[in-house]
Structure formats: structure tokens, C-alpha cells
């Protein structure tokens, strides 16, 4: 089975190898790899277009899981967008208001995952910011995720900054 994958790598050395390794391990044959080193995505990642032939179609799901476990985002499989990612920013006492609870509440919505998060803590008493990437595998759940975020922001008195696309 011939499959085209659009993946996005971190802009760091060694990422491409990390993306290709599971393919050969799972018995896939690489047909082509186009590494668009100069054109970063909106999130500063490097897009790579991979064409691979898999002997056993059932290994596809395993492959996708392994890639994502290695922080390689799979944007599209055979031109079909797999998951949508949205970025949001929370400002305020993000850590002190139980950040674990914030993340759990989002992850508890099925089809929604906090895929990535970076924090900025200028000073223990000062306000913190958290930038989160939300991965939505079920587009119907975007509304629920945004409602939960609004609720969290209100309850915890945080300022929520959404990305333009949502």
C-alpha cells in the first residue's frame, strides 16, 4: 500500500532520522522524502513530505502513533488532514491555579489533547504565561474545547488569547 504523509518536524538536528527510523523498522519502503528545509510552518516547524509503501496496511496506525510519540506531527495522511492544531495562550496565575487540572479538563474531552505547552515564569509572584497547542482529532469537539477554555479562564481569572483561526 502506497501512502503519502505530510509531517512536521522540530527545527533541530536529528529530527528527520527520528521520523524515518520507525518506517523501516515497521517494514515500510521509502519511495521519496521531500524535506522543505527553508519553508517553516506557522509554528516554526519543518514540513516534510514522505511517500512510503507499507507491506501490511495495518501497520499504518502503529506508525502514526510512533511518529507522534517522537514529537513528529502528522499533519496529513494521503492529503487528508488528520488532526487540527490550535494554539492558545493563558496569562495570569496559570501555575498557581492548578495547571494540572487545566490540562486534565481539556484532555478529558474526547478528541482533544494538550499536545504541547511552554511556560514563561518571570518571577514567582508575577503573572505566568502558558502557550498551549491543542490537538483536535474530532472537529466536532472544537466548540467543546473552546467552551471549557472560556470556563477555565473565567473560574481561574486567567486571560485567554486564542489564535486568529478559532
Amino acid at each position: 500500500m502506497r501512502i503519502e504523509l505530510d509531517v512536521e518536524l522540530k527545527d533541530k538536528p536529528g529530527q528527520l532520522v527520528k521520523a524515518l527510523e520507525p518506517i523501516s523498522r515497521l517494514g515500510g519502503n521509502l519511495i521519496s522524502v521531500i524535506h522543505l528545509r527553508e519553508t517553516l510552518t506557522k509554528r516554526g516547524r519543518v514540513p516534510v513530505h514522505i511517500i512510503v509503501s507499507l507491506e501490511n496496511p495495518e501497520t499504518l496506525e502503529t506508525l502514526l502513533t510512533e511518529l507522534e510519540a517522537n514529537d513528529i506531527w502528522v499533519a496529513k495522511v494521503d492529503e487528508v488532514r488528520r488532526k487540527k492544531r490550535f494554539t492558545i495562550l493563558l496569562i495570569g496565575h496559570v501555575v498557581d491555579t492548578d495547571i494540572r487540572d487545566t490540562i486534565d479538563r481539556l484532555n478529558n474531552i474526547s478528541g482533544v489533547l494538550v499536545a504541547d505547552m511552554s511556560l514563561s515564569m518571570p518571577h514567582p509572584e508575577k503573572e505566568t504565561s502558558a502557550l498551549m497547542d491543542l490537538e483536535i482529532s474530532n472537529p466536532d469537539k472544537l466548540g467543546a474545547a473552546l467552551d471549557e477554555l472560556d470556563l477555565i479562564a473565567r473560574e481561574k481569572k486567567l486571560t485567554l488569547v486564542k489564535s486568529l483561526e478559532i
Partner: protein
Amino acid sequence: MRINLVGFGVIGKGFAKTLIMKRDWLKARYGFEPSVVSISDITGTLVNPDGIDLSATLETVNRTGRIIDCPGATVMQSLDAIRGVDAELMVEVTPTNVKTGEPGLSHMLAAMDVGKHVVTSNKGPLALAYKKLRATAEKKGVQFKFESSAGGAMPLINLANEVLSGDEIISIKGILNGTTNFILTKMTKEGTDFETTLKEAQELGIAETDPSYDISGSDTASKLVILTNAILGREATYSDVSVQGITKITPEAIALAKEEGFVIKLIGEVEDGSLSVAPKLVPENHPLNVDGTLNVASFTTDLAGDVTIVGRGAGAIETNSAILSDILSIYRSGAGR
């Protein structure tokens, strides 16, 4: 065409300057000879049925700040001037009030009532009582134009309704306030905090002494209501907008967003029937990422796709570009000759 000018502050004086500057050009190009027959501010009214000497009036008011100090001016109030001094059109440029819409709302209704066309940059009456104003203008058979009220010099309403008249406008998003854009841009470039940056903006005369109307998002919300009604044919009011300002934005948050390729901008947006004003993460390479005091608006349309326009959202002369274009459009439609 005879004009009652109501309000003689930044924009009113800018209007007088624009007419002086463009007098010969307007005559040569369009055969248009506007004549300002009354000017009112809060202190009184100056009247001359043959046309007021705008240079002399500017000279006096620049010195004293009051119309009443001009030779021949009386304590006649603006409403009496609107009703009593013959003219075809009123230019209404008094301060915006988003709580009551006054004094602008009464001025506009009175002018329409006596059959005068109305051109305004005043957001208050539009954000509160658009439906009533529209209906009154229709009933009285006069034109009502307000391009300058949302987006300053950017020709948004005309672009959407005239130039893109075959398109359906699906959504509108943009940066509609120069003060907040200036503050966020400076915080991004210099890493300064909100309070310090606001103070600098005030020192530079970019932010008002009372900056709350801008930084709370209210100004953006008023403009969004105006665009929604004029372009999407709705009857929204200020209370339909969910509004969040920029006071809670920190330099750390901006820096964090930047690491991931985003800037933070105060965006006004109408989409799927809902109106909102809030700081948003905008990808750095997005057309809405414009800096400094610039404004920008983007329409998503069914045929043309996205159409984006960047320009100056305020300024004495810039804003009068839109006021003059409204007046010319009324004049060229054959009305008020």
C-alpha cells in the same frame, strides 16, 4: 452645496483645512463648490449664508479654542443652527459617546428631519441607534454616510458595498484601533510592560489622557458594530459585542507567543453572526500583522476570497479623506446640488 458643520475640534478643523487645500481641485475635477454656511461648537455658532471664511475661522479658533470668539458668532446652539440655517448637508463631528450617543444622535435626527443629508465620523449614534437613523434617513429621503467612523481613511464600507457589490461578505476581521496597535507593537519590539508603554503613548499624543475607551476594546467594538451593520446588513448594537481589551497582556506572554511565530493583536471580528473584540494570536506572516498605529481590515467574500486593506485609522486630514468622499458621493448622485 451648502454645509452645516457641527463640531470644530480635530476633525472639524481638519475638514476646514481639507476644503481650503482642495478648493480649486474640487472645482476643476468635479465642478464641486462646497460652501460652509454654519460652524457650531459647544460655545456657539458662526453663520454666513454666503460661505464662511474658513481660514480666518481656523486662525481664531486655533488661538482661542472657541467658535464664540470669531467675529459675528452668536450663542446660537448647534440644534438651532441645524434647524434654522439653510443647507443641503450636515457634517457631524462632535465627540463619540457610546452610552447615550449624544449630542450626535439628536444632531443627526434633527438634520434628517429638516431634509438634510448627513455625513459623520461620530461612532456613538451609529453603534447605539443605527436602525433608527437608517429608518429616519429613508423616511425623509436623505442620504446618511459614515465611512470615516470605522477605519478612518480606509475605505471599508465603500469597498464592500460598492466595489465588491457582487460579492457576499462572509466575515470581517481587523485591527480597528491605532492606539492599541501602537502599544502592542511597542511592547513586542521593546519588551516593555503595558503601563510603561501606555505612558509613552500618552506622552507622544497617541493615547488620550483617559485611554480607557481605546484600551478596553470599546472603540474597536463600536467600529465593528458600524461595519457589521453597514456591510452585513445587520442591526447590531454595542451590547451585542463580547469585548476584551489589552490591559492584561504582559511582555512575557508576547515573548512566548513570538517564540512560536505569533504576535498578539487586538482583533475585532464578526463571523457566523457573532461579534467579538479580543487580543488574538496572529501568525507573524499573516496579512493582519501590521505594526504601529496602522489599521487593517480583511473581508472574506464568496467570490474574491480574502480582500485586505491597510491604512490610517485616524488623523485630522486622513479621516477627512473619507468624509470628503462621502460628501462627493452624495454630490455626484445628484443630491444636494
